[in-house]
């Protein structure tokens, strides 16, 4: 059976349609040979099931970034696959520009003009039958968001699959381009004058389509309101303060709103689940060590991490809103000059902000940068962006040691991360062969109300991977740690003679100048290399606290002072990234040199700034 490839420009609603067609059940893998996420899923047609693959978005066949070039390679591979192009109905010209280029590939093509619902409200009308006649391609008006027109599209796909390829390709009416002109379209070194003629020919065809098929272009009111919004959000006086305020609000929400739900989960675990399991185990007359392993090791470790799921969900939702609304592109626009000062392009701000969610996908997101050196710098400074997994550490420690100033303390840490990232970029700039001079041409998508559904899908995907980690790596680490803490060289022993104690003691001298040279803190940091959340689950196990709330009145106050607690948080913020990030750096840079460099770099930065923070804090108190 022929397979389907989903193509379209970024922001055309490609992912929404993909989720809609596959019912959200997708398989995420990698494209062969490269680590670019490959989303594929099954779609049900009346003749059976077929595979649909979501290709990375692109605007034209001539590609500039790594991700786009993957789409290009797949498109140029001869196969009998069907191309399904998604077009933004509000920006039909741009979509058709890609359509005319796709027609040169000589593959069966079907168009889905998306956002039909917005067209109705803005008073536009697209004459689909007329457009079909002009292009010779099946076209469907849909709204992926509201799921309108999907069944018609499915039957259209069905028809195209059963039709012999020669017939559907023969029906296409491409732009009048010669063979050599077609080659120019995908060749980055094409002679510019000939190419100009070729692109103009395509735009002439597009203009003909628009004149015949679109009854009313976007109303001037709408353009005016978009422009007014742009002027306000990027204005000289309030543009940047507004951005800072928005980020502050995001963290405030994460901290306070998330805290409410966190408390509920914590109570559920410590007051209900753990006692219940404990009494169940004693009813079954389970071996005491096994019951302790499950409850004190597994459950309390997992609880330490699960408690913070609401905070992380809010953070991811906020980042998704910034992205989907079109604001993120404006942030890149506003930051370009500032980023230029550290030798980067404005677009580099996007992976940095994504790093606040999770550094691993953010490092992958550095692919938006076209130059290899730019990408490397963006990758190396990314771990300083405080990810969601580090948030629980701040939330917990600041609630104990800085109960009145939680948000402020957290915000200061995020800010410090940004500062160290900037400093590092400046340092790297000294050693760079060439500083970015690549043209900054960034398309600014129209502002749009983010859809609740696509937000939920995004948040769900991230939460899923967080939960998966809690159930696998973190659970395993918690159990191992419990063993290390309850057993020593002489077998079953108490904390003071356990393996954990010895390991912690061996490492702790490094941290004495930083104020937290205790074995408990050292052991937590060491295991935190697996995943940063483990620092917290460790604390819970070490102090035998049931639930995170229990930690506040436990031994934590004995091993930390406010000064050393802050220094500890600074260390957690900056030190060696987790395994997932290290391996992502490896796969993105295709060498072990850079992950090793990153480990060394982050560790030295962490030690230095933590030392500074502790010494200054001591002077102040």
């Amino acid at each position: 059976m022929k397979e389907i490839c989903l193509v379209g420009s970024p922001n055309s609603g490609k992912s929404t349609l993909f989720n809609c067609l596959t019912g959200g059940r997708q398989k995420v893998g990698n494209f062969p040979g490269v680590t670019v996420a490959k989303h594929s899923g099954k779609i049900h047609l009346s003749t059976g099931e077929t595979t649909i693959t979501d290709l990375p978005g692109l605007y034209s066949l001539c590609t500039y970034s790594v991700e786009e070039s993957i789409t290009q390679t797949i498109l140029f591979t001869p196969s009998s696959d069907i191309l399904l192009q998604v077009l933004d109905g509000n920006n039909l010209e741009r979509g058709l520009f890609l359509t005319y280029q796709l027609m040169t590939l000589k593959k069966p093509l079907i168009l889905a003009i998306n956002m039909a619902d917005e067209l109705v409200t803005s008073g536009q009308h697209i004459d689909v039958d007329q457009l079909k006649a002009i292009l010779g391609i099946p076209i469907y008006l849909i709204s992926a968001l509201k799921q309108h027109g999907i069944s018609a599209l499915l039957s259209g796909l069905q028809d195209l699959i059963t039709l012999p390829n020669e017939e559907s390709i023969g029906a296409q009416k491409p732009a009048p381009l010669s063979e050599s002109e077609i080659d120019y379209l995908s060749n980055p070194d094409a002679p510019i004058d000939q190419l100009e003629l070729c692109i103009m020919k395509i735009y002439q065809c597009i203009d003909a389509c628009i004149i015949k098929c679109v009854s009313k272009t976007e109303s001037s009111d709408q353009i005016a309101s978009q422009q007014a919004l742009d002027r306000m959000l990027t204005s000289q006086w309030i543009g940047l303060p507004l951005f800072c305020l928005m980020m502050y609000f995001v963290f405030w929400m994460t901290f306070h709103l998330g805290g409410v739900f966190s408390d509920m989960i914590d109570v559920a675990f410590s007051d209900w689940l753990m006692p219940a399991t404990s009494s169940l185990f004693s009813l079954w007359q389970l071996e005491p060590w096994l019951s302790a392993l499950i409850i004190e090791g597994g459950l309390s470790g997992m609880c330490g991490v699960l408690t913070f799921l609401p905070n992380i969900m809010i953070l991811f939702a906020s980042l998704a809103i910034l992205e989907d609304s079109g604001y993120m592109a404006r942030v890149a626009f506003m930051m370009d000059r500032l980023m230029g000062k550290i030798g980067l392009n404005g677009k580099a701000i996007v992976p940095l902000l994504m790093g606040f969610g999770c550094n691993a996908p953010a490092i992958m997101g550095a692919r938006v940068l076209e130059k290899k050196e730019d990408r490397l710098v963006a990758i190396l400074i990314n771990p300083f962006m405080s990810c969601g997994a580090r948030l629980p550490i701040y939330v917990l420690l600041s609630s104990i040691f800085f109960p009145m100033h939680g948000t402020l303390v957290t915000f200061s840490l995020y800010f410090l991360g940004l500062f160290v990232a900037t400093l590092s970029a400046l340092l790297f700039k000294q050693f760079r062969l060439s500083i970015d001079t690549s043209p900054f041409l960034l398309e600014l998508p129209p502002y749009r109300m983010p859809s609740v559904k696509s937000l939920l899908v995004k948040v769900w995907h991230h939460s899923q991977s967080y939960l998966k980690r809690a159930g696998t790596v973190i659970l395993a680490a918690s159990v191992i740690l419990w063993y290390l803490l309850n057993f020593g060289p002489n077998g079953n022993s108490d904390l003071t003679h356990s393996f954990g104690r010895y390991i912690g003691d061996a490492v702790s001298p490094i941290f004495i100048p930083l104020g937290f040279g205790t074995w408990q803190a050292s052991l937590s940091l060491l295991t935190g290399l697996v995943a940063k959340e483990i620092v917290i689950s460790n604390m819970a196990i070490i102090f035998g606290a049931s639930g995170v709330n229990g930690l506040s009145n436990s031994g934590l106050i004995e091993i930390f002072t406010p000064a050393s607690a802050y220094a500890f948080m600074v260390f957690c913020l900056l030190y060696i990234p987790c395994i997932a990030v290290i391996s992502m750096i490896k796969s993105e840079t295709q060498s072990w040199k850079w992950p090793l460099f990153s480990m060394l770099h982050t560790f030295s930065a962490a030690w230095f700034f933590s030392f500074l923070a502790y010494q200054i804090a001591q002077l102040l108190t």
Partner: protein
Amino acid sequence: MTLDQLLLGEHATIVAIHCPPVMKRRLMELGLFVGSSIQKIATSPLGDPHEFQTGIVTFSLRGLDAKMIDITLSKHGSTRRVL
């Protein structure tokens, strides 16, 4: 006059594009040719880059690149591309 001299809200028509081939190609892909109408929408709070609109595409361009595009002022913009 060149595109970087265009004031906020003003409309202009492109007269010549002297950008390097890579940049010129991208501008063309956005639908910006000699004869296209362009309007300046906004300037970044830090003074650079600038935001322009041609047809229904909104994009940002640095002053340095805008300097390489010759324009003439026009009274009214049009959302139509002139070819």
